[in-house]
């Protein structure tokens, strides 16, 4: 790591890699079948940050928007079904549902998944959609139904584990739809505080080790709820920053102590530090060199470690991590929602016009 090799950022190859992710996934990615929405998000947001979205045809964009909406579950007026709403991860489960139109065909297993809902909404924003086809009431009911008594969230109504990842998804959905009334903010904040361990950062849940991914989810959630300055004391923030800064190991960032550095933590840890004002405590050039060393020079894309196979998740989080550093001609990224600042601006303009509309309807 002493500057023997200076890696270059292979922008065009990554664009090609992500374009392929948009179209076809290899069999090795079968475990992602039920979460294709997340892969879509990685590809779209990655292309956005690489300034490669302009190469996607308008017709293709519209096709993707329609595909996303086709995965939305629409319970209509049936109040009992509202909580089963949200977005699905892929078509393989939905297509077996039989005919899509009648409400009675929504069975208890065919319900939204909170991560898919977040990535669906984020993808729509990136594509410039105005969210007018989103059934807000239903989506918020779906989020509300997934919160547990201890403040954390499940991912789906059919049942799943509950932890910090889904709390983050809940917060992003509420932020995008500008409505936090669906969740109990106090218990959510309490869950986050309770998940802090002796190391000073957050684990996936109470009793679990501090972890880079969960810490990001917790910090970004607090930020989106507007609670970051009040929920954590100065000492708690200091210890958190110290833990995050200590994750840099020979250039790259690790998810937990004594683990090898992994590209995806460039975003999880980097964005956490950005939100806490401590990103500059890292050695950014060494970090950048590590990320670039995980690039695949033939297929494009970034992998977890150098000399591993690239995949959508690590490619995207490596790119958005680099975007935080402000180099390599990447578009700036918003650390809390994990979308480009351009996309965030679009979202804010939607927020503005909806408040204006609601004001005019009041008269």
């Amino acid at each position, binding site marked *: 790591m002493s500057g023997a090799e200076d890696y270059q950022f292979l922008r065009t190859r990554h664009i090609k890699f992500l374009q392929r992710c948009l179209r076809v996934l*290899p*069999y090795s990615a*079968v*475990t*992602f*079948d*039920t979460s294709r929405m997340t892969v879509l998000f990685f590809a779209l947001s990655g292309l956005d940050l690489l300034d490669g979205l302009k190469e996607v045809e308008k017709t293709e964009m519209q096709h993707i928007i329609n595909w996303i909406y086709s995965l939305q579950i629409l319970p209509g007026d049936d109040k009992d079904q509202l909580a089963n709403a949200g977005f699905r991860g892929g078509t*393989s*489960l939905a*297509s*077996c*549902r*039989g005919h899509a139109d009648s409400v009675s*065909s929504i069975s208890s*297993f*065919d319900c939204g*998944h909170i991560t898919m809902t977040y990535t669906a909404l984020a993808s729509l924003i990136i594509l410039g959609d105005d969210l007018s086809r989103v059934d807000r009431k239903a989506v918020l009911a779906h989020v509300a139904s997934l919160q547990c008594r201890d403040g954390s969230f499940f*991912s*789906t109504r*059919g*049942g*799943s*584990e509950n932890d910090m990842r889904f709390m983050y998804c809940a917060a992003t959905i509420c932020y995008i739809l500008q409505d936090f009334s669906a969740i109990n903010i106090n218990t959510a904040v309490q869950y986050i505080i309770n998940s802090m*361990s*002796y*190391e000073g950062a957050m*684990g996936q*849940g109470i*009793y*679990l*080790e*501090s*972890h880079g991914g969960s810490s990001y989810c917790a910090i970004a959630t607090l930020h989106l709820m507007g609670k970051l*300055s*009040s929920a954590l*004391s*100065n000492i*708690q923030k200091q210890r958190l920053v*110290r833990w995050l*800064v*200590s994750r*840099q190991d*020979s*250039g790259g960032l690790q998810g*937990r*102590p*004594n*683990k090898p550095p992994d590209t995806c933590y460039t975003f999880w840890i980097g964005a956490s530090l950005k939100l806490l004002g401590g990103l*500059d*405590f*890292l*050695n950014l050039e*060494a970090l950048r060199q590590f990320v670039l060393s995980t690039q695949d020079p033939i297929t494009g894309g970034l*992998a*977890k*470690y150098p*000399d*591993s*196979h690239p*995949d959508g998740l690590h490619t995207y989080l490596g790119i958005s991590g680099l975007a935080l550093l402000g180099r390599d001609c990447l578009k700036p990224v918003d650390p809390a929602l994990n979308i480009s600042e351009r996309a965030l601006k679009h979202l804010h303009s939607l927020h503005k016009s909806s408040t204006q509309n609601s004001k005019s309807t009041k008269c």
Partner: protein
Amino acid sequence: MHGRLKIKTTAEQAAEKQKEREGKRKLYLGGVTKAFEKRSSGTHDEEGLKITAQLLAANPDAATLWNFRREILLALKGDDESWEKLLTGELAMVESCLMKNHKSYGAWHHRFWVMMNFPKPPWKAELSLCDKYLKLDERNFHCWDYRRFVVLGSNQQPEDELKFSQHLIEHNLSNYSAWHYRSKLLPLVHPPPSNTPHPISEGALIKELQTVVEAVFTDPSDQSPWFFLRWLVNRQEKVPRMLQVGYVRYKGDSGLVICVFSQPVPQRAVPFIRLNGADSDETLIWYAPNDEDYSNVWVAELNLSSVEAHTISLIIDPSMTEMLNVGEGSTQAIEWVTTLEVGGEELSDTARSTLEEVKDNCVTLDELDPGNKWVLLTLVDVMWALDCHTHQKKIHSYLSQLQELDVLRNKYYADMKSKLAMETSLKQYRIVAEVGSKFELSGHSLTRITLSHLLASTASIDLSRNDLTSISPLSNLVACRKLILDDNQIQNLAPLAGLKALESLSLTHNKIQSLEQLKVLEGLSALTELNVSANPVCDLDNTGEDIRKILPHIKTLILR
């Protein structure tokens, strides 16, 4: 997706693989379709179990398939004996999924469900399963979480688990998860009495410290025991307290009441105010200089006629009223409500002697194994906790060593040096401070200003010749009349926009580029002296005229 390495294949091998994949894909899709046909028709049978088993073996993270499987199992539930048999088979099935992916959320979650449905759960066997998976990967937090569940269910005592963690640590000092587990068990087995700042009872603390110190002497290069040590010695945070109340007149009879707290508090924490023995509270509108909901400093406008003396009473709680006397014609008054906390002053005797012992051990270790980052970091922490003022020189030299040893975190240590300089100076300042005294900390390579709330009532502040770029904490200097920020890297002056009392501002040798950046000072009606020489903005045409236009109150303007 789990860090697989690449291997090269020939064209022939690649083609065969492609065929194999196609076949697998068809089977998979076929299976999924069949599974959901069954579900929609409400068919819960053995075949469904078979199909979902195959699908989940390929994709153990399909939550919906696990849900369907649970539905089938519940539908097939018969008497206790057959149910136990079914569930035992289920445990085997989950294990086959786990063998493929030790970290599948879906598989572990299903195992929880199976165990919760057993009439007589086989806890012992599950504990062995945990041992097995932890041997494969001692950091597998899914397994640790599951182990906790098994321990609870089997009524395994925390003391036994404590022994287990000890065994793991002895076997491998760097078993980070085992130290973590220990940190959760210790407060259960040795809870601290309510008033102590430590996480466990004092007796256990001393014993634990001995163990940890032994561990670090055995292998000083491993970070796990050092983090544990830091957790043991670190103090918990205190409840926020009011530190200071002040009054400053900034123009004629116009003035500000200032309340300073030890930590950021919301507005409702500000006490009620009564003037000159009145019976009712004054209605004051409090605001935070940083415009946030939580702040260390809260300020309110209050006009008091300067031809007479006044008494401001703060009702802190029913038993405590703080009085601030503002003399006739005086421009400033300060009252310290509680002892200033700048670290180390409130340690119990046991805590102090414990920390001293740790310090001595570390000093020995530093002599035996010089250049060990963890020893130095611990020394910094412990000395700072004891008394940053007395140990300032040593702490500073350790930080310099750390900057060389741990180059990646160079900027982080530089930042700690800034903090050290500020905290020590503020402690010194507190001891000698009187109304009207000056706070100076120049030429210290400061990159950051901390604890600025302790300067909220200070009239004259000098932070020249440092490395400051961001000055946002300076928004707290609401009583400051004279501010010297020469020789820094400042561009953005927005934090100074609310400093109503400011009369003289010196910014020579900074990075101010434009008139826009100076415009933020336009609300400061008391500002009459401004020095912006040796800034890029001075190279523009007509700077002098333009500045006077936007800041008409300025009488003395220095441009060169």
